[in-house]
């Protein structure tokens, strides 16, 4: 008889423990659900009550914000003081390149401008297409050949954002001596 009541007591204790475990699991689950729920207050008179909503996982930061950390990345442009080409030849060896630092951000284009005596008017001798970061242009064909001499020239570098619109950004003019020999 005593043994029977012991077994009964043990079963009750086990049952209570099981109830405790289930209650714990339910409490944790409810807390997790509450964290992801926003309750919109109902009308002032309370009719209708609140509406349960969850955070939309598709909502994201404003990617159009131009001053984001990525957009603050400046454009890196390599410059030289002079460039040498052969007289009476349109083919020229150069090194126009887009530094690796611009990876993911900017294409560059290069325009070789020959300036006249007034320093205002210029003639375009060469225009490149978009150059990707890490790429070089080593050989170009000028729009015309030049006589021997030293000319005032500018390499105009226009960066473009690597987005669908290829938006042009601020740009740079590198003044150089174009040495023709």
């Amino acid at each position: 008889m005593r043994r029977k009541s012991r077994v009964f007591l043990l079963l009750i204790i086990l049952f209570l423990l099981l109830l405790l475990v289930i209650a714990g699991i339910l409490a944790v689950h409810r807390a997790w659900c509450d964290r992801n729920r926003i309750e919109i207050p109902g009308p002032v008179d309370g009719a209708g009550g609140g509406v349960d909503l969850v955070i939309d996982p598709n909502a994201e930061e404003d990617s159009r914000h131009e001053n984001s950390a990525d957009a603050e990345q400046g454009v890196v442009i390599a410059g030289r003081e002079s460039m040498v080409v052969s007289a009476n030849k349109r083919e020229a060896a150069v090194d126009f390149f887009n530094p690796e630092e611009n990876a993911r951000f900017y294409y560059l284009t290069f325009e070789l401008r020959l300036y006249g005596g007034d320093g205002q008017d210029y003639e375009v001798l060469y225009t490149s297409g978009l150059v990707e970061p890490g790429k070089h242009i080593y050989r170009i064909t000028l729009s015309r050949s030049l006589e021997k001499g030293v000319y005032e020239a500018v390499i105009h570098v226009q960066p473009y954002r690597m987005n669908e619109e290829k938006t042009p950004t601020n740009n740079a003019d590198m003044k150089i001596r174009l040495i023709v020999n």
Partner: protein
Amino acid sequence: MKKLSVVILTAVLLLAGPSLRLASAGDIITQDSGEKSGNITVGYDAGVAYTVTIPASVTFTDSEKRIERPLQVNNIVLNEGSTLSVNIASANHFKMTHGEGYIEYSLLVNSNAVPKEDSFNVLKVAAGDKSGWAILEFVTDLNTEYATYAGSYTDTLTFTVTIN
């Protein structure tokens, strides 16, 4: 015992072989073979070069009317006595334009207001310095008095690098 002697002798010959060969391979050793010296020229023609980092763009908003951007020149190699200068010119004389409308802004360089000239100097680096920088501060009150239409108002800056 004989075998052991052969093994030891072989080992000695193998170890000493290279040095014996040097002496017997016909090297001519004369009184002139003392220490010699000579010169070779190791050279590299370092051309004048640099890298400039310019701000790509600045976008004002109602909450951002004062924006700082760095201007940097690095890896500078110049001829002795020469100077690298960076000037800035605004395509629209420091007005962000849209059609005929505009919104004015101004520029400070290292906290000093700069005149709205066609082109003005913002940075100078002398030969011997490897880098130089300036902090550009773009400021506007977003006064829309002359902004005729809704839309994007923009200006473009050109950074001109000259070596004198």
